[in-house]
């Protein structure tokens, strides 16, 4: 990987102590209200900032913009590319053969010590600062106000494909049958709205790779995994500034 990823070892204190407390509080509030999550940074700094700024974790949780705040934690090292998630997604959401809503990418490192291969499931990150919804001229794609899912209103799609250009995660494709761009919506129409608790991919996964849940619920597994100091959690392409709601971890 060319880009520098933040690592614990290299982290230095940026001297926040010198910033007046009130200002810091405002700054973090704004950041967390916008992002709702710890995207981009390491958890260590994020969690400790939360402690500094909010009297209780309850106050912090209120800062999540959505309820439920749907998100997914991906346990990267557990993925074995059996692709049951892909078949489940395709059949549940009627995804045509030429497209996909989620994919499993493969990284091979012949010179690695130990395991020489890793699989990386990718899907729509349902970003809090979503590029696709910003660039859409007709609001055919939009953030759902209650749960934060990036939805599509196919009728309004003019097919300019700017959202495809804007997405840093290659999560969108043009569906010829729907005459609109199609993308992952965490199975909202096909499962969640019908009372199912998991997306098709998460429910099909035999290895516990895809953990789907509510980031605003302190009892939820995703919440608990994200809010751990010991666990390294990251998001894809943090430099794109999208504040994703799909997290990655190992172990």
């Amino acid at each position: 990987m060319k880009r520098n990823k933040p690592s614990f070892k290299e982290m230095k204190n940026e001297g926040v102590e010198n910033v007046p407390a009130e200002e810091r509080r405002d700054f973090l509030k704004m950041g967390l209200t916008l992002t709702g999550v710890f995207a981009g940074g390491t958890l260590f700094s994020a969690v400790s900032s939360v402690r500094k700024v909010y009297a209780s974790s309850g106050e912090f949780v209120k800062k999540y913009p959505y309820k439920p705040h749907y998100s997914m934690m991906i346990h990267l090292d557990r993925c074995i590319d059996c692709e049951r998630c892909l078949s489940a997604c395709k059949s549940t959401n009627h995804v045509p053969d030429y497209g996909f809503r989620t994919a499993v990418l493969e990284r091979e490192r012949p010179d690695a010590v130990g395991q020489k291969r890793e699989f990386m499931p990718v899907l729509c990150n349902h970003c809090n600062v979503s590029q696709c919804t910003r660039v859409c001229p007709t609001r055919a794609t939009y953030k759902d106000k209650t749960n934060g899912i990036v939805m599509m209103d196919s009728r309004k799609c003019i097919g300019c494909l700017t959202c495809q250009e804007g997405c840093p995660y290659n999560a969108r494709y043009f569906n010829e049958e729907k005459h609109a761009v199609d993308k992952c919506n965490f199975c909202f129409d096909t499962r969640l709205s019908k009372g199912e608790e998991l997306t098709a991919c998460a429910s099909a996964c035999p290895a516990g790779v895809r953990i789907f849940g509510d980031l605003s619920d302190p009892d939820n597994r995703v919440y608990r995994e994200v809010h751990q100091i010991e666990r390294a959690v990251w998001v894809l392409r943090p430099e794109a500034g999208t504040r994703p709601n799909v997290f990655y971890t190992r172990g």
Partner: protein
Amino acid sequence: MDATRKLTLNDIESEITGRLLSAGKGYYLAVLLSALMVVAAVAAGLHAMVVGHDHTYNLTREIPWGILIATYVFFVVTSTGLCLVSSIGHVFGIESMMPIAKRSVFLSIATILAGFFVIAFEIKMPWRMAVYNIISPNITSNIWWMGTLYGLYLVLMMFEFLFLNLNKHRLAVGCGFSGAIAGIAAHSNLGAVFGLLMGREFWHGPYMSIYFIASAMMTGTAVIFLFHYLAYKINDEPMESRMVESLNVTRKLGIMLICVIMFFTVWKMTAGIAGQPGGKYEAVMALVKGPYAVNFWLFEVGFGLVFPLVLFYLSKGKNMFMMFAGSAMMIIGIFIMRYDLVLLGQVVPVFHEYGVNEYKHLLSYFPSFHEIIITLGGFGVASFLFLIGEKLFGGHKVEPGHHH
């Protein structure tokens, strides 16, 4: 034509017919060819809509924008450039730029229509745009602003042209000024369509909006020169000394703008190489010594900048053919610039930095038959309108002293 004379419908009809019948064989051949290109493009575009764009265009999920977007950008760049350069004379009152005004305004309408023609076949459901752009606007979308402002721009340019021909100079100046503002706003929004995409390193930043305006003016000078040269050939008239002088000023402006774009290009490339910024570096190196090196060095740098600069300089404003050759080269070069600009933002896959097997390499694209036909159709629209306009409006003559 004296605008104050009372005309009957018969007069107008015979006047128009007379003008349209006054040309040589070459002219009619060019009109026919242009019309055929447009018809072919309409056929290809409709065919694509019926059988599906995925079967007819070589576009992919990773490269959803191809030559049609590039062509659209090329035409709107040209139109904006024509508007801006021509406004120097008749809007801002620089006397020596006056004679090129009418034709340039007309051409800016012709080229934006060519752009709209092409984009209509690029967008998958253009009819939805007409409805939802109005009832469901997204004001954070640069595409929305660009579409809306270019719509406004087209209307203003049409009124400007109307008022210019009716010798209503005050109104023409008003429309021209507003049109120029709308054009700059629309065009910089087009730059922002690319520039504000955070995940696309090659495009991202304020550069695109600024570059697009400078680049538009450079294109404007080339197109003004090219079409004026051709117009006098078509109309078979010697160029008036005022026009020669006006084109000489355009030439000087062109030289300056080529230098500006050279400056922009040098820093764009340098910024993409120094420190090897992720995503941008790979794209810039693809231009410098990768699969797009010929496009870059021969077309963008050679045809687009260096050759015309030399020819413009050597012509001293007197050698018309040299200037014509220079501007023709420039237009070819600029088209490739737009093509590369659109493509290079997409060839580095979004997951490139993760070193996954699927996205280890640069992506590739080459336009399909349908795409090429529609692209040619765009040029057909511009050339058809230009040719008809020359005869219909009697060579866009601007009488001296008819302003303000």
